[in-house]
Each structure stands twice: as structure tokens, then as C-alpha cells.
């Protein structure tokens, strides 16, 4: 695996993910190259209660949904990660 740096990102939590994480946002350090699966693992390791709904979460990076199909993602300091539970708008 290529040598990695850590970058500081802002993580936002909404609805049930915020209830379980106990916070609406936080700054964390993550590797600058990750898959969405790894990123989700890092986040739910920080907030164990999120494991209960991990299968129902996806992530957005800078307001774009990501998925396993996105492959490896390049992150930069200041990027915004959102932890998104199932939607119920409309």
C-alpha cells in the first residue's frame, strides 16, 4: 500500500446518527486515501453505538454521496464528511 498521510476532516452527524454519536459534528484525523467502507469503519469505531445502524448508513464527502463503487477516495484537510442515515424527506 502507498505511504499515507493523515488529514483533518470535519464529520457531520444527522438524525439517528447524531442521536447515537452524541454529537452533531467533530474534527478527526483520517488517512488521505480511503474507501468508503474503511472511512465508515473509522467513524463507527469512534462511536460504538453507531455500529447498531452501520448497515443503514452511507457517507457523503463534500456533499456528494460515496459508496464502494466510488473506489478509493482522495481526502484533503478541511474536507467535510457526512454520516447519513436512511432518508425520510418529502
Amino acid at each position, binding site marked *: 500500500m502507498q505511504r499515507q498521510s493523515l488529514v483533518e476532516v470535519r464529520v*457531520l452527524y*444527522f*438524525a*439517528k446518527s447524531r*442521536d447515537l454519536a452524541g454529537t452533531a459534528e467533530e474534527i478527526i484525523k483520517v488517512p488521505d486515501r480511503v474507501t468508503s467502507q474503511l472511512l465508515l469503519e473509522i467513524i463507527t469505531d469512534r462511536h460504538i453505538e453507531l455500529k447498531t445502524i452501520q*448497515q*443503514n*448508513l*452511507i457517507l*457523503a464527502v463534500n*456533499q456528494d*454521496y460515496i459508496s464502494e463503487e466510488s473506489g478509493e477516495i482522495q481526502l484533503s484537510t478541511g474536507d467535510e464528511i*457526512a454520516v*447519513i*442515515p*436512511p*432518508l*425520510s*424527506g*418529502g
Partner: protein
Amino acid sequence: MTSDQVLIKLSSSVLSLDEATQFTTLPECGAVSVFIGITRDNCNGKTVLHLEYEAYEAMAVKEIQKICDHMLKTWDVRRIAVFHRLGYVPITEASVVIAVSSPHRKASLEAVEYCIDTLKATVPIWKKELYKEGDWIWKTNKECSWSKDAAS
């Protein structure tokens, strides 16, 4: 946000149907189709007191804009208004108002259906339903592709 053809609003006050239809009414358009999503008083036998909506606002606007771009490309529609309520919403008030105008009605009828269906599937907005008994739940749209236990 506004452009020439699209008006998107996320609002913590009562949504204006008049504003949506006035924005979409144009001299070359013979049809305006509207969808209004309303707060129901019951769900699966439980009495709903009110709703609370929350959004990832910047991304919600972005996703709604994508929906509108697709509508403008796919159908001969001319103006689109999409308003979504945030915060506390009492029974029988609107949570969403969508209005679409087109020269002929088929386009606006199809486009408004596409809009509400896709909004429910892609726009990061969440609904908390609060019940008479004092409990509450975060709802899940069955349209949401990553839900493993989609309910209504």
C-alpha cells in the same frame, strides 16, 4: 436558491403554495402540476402529534438541484419550484410543495411525480414522527436505497 427556471427553498415557516404556483406560471405554459406532501395524523395505528424535519441543508439543495436539472433535460418543463419544510410541522400542514409548469400537461404531470419520488430517494432530509404516547421515531422512506429495513 433561485435561477431563472428553478426555485428551491428549505423553510422553517409555513410553505407558500401561492409562491410556488406564481413562480411557475408563465404565458407559454398551459399546465402547472403540483404535489403537496402533508403531515398525517396517524401511522400504523399510532396517533401522530407532529413531525420534526431536519436536513443537511447545503447538500439537500444540491441534490434537489440535480433532480431539477434532470427534469429540465428529460421533459419540456419550463419552471420548477421545490419547497421543503424544516423543524416542527403540525398535522395537516405541508412538508413539501412541488410545482412544475409546461406548455402541455403530460410533461408536468410526469415530471412532478419523478420529482417527489426522487426527492424521497436522494435528498438528505429526515423526518422524526412524534406520537401521542410520548415516544418518537426517525422514519425511513421505502425509496431510500441503502435502508435495510425500509418502513413507511
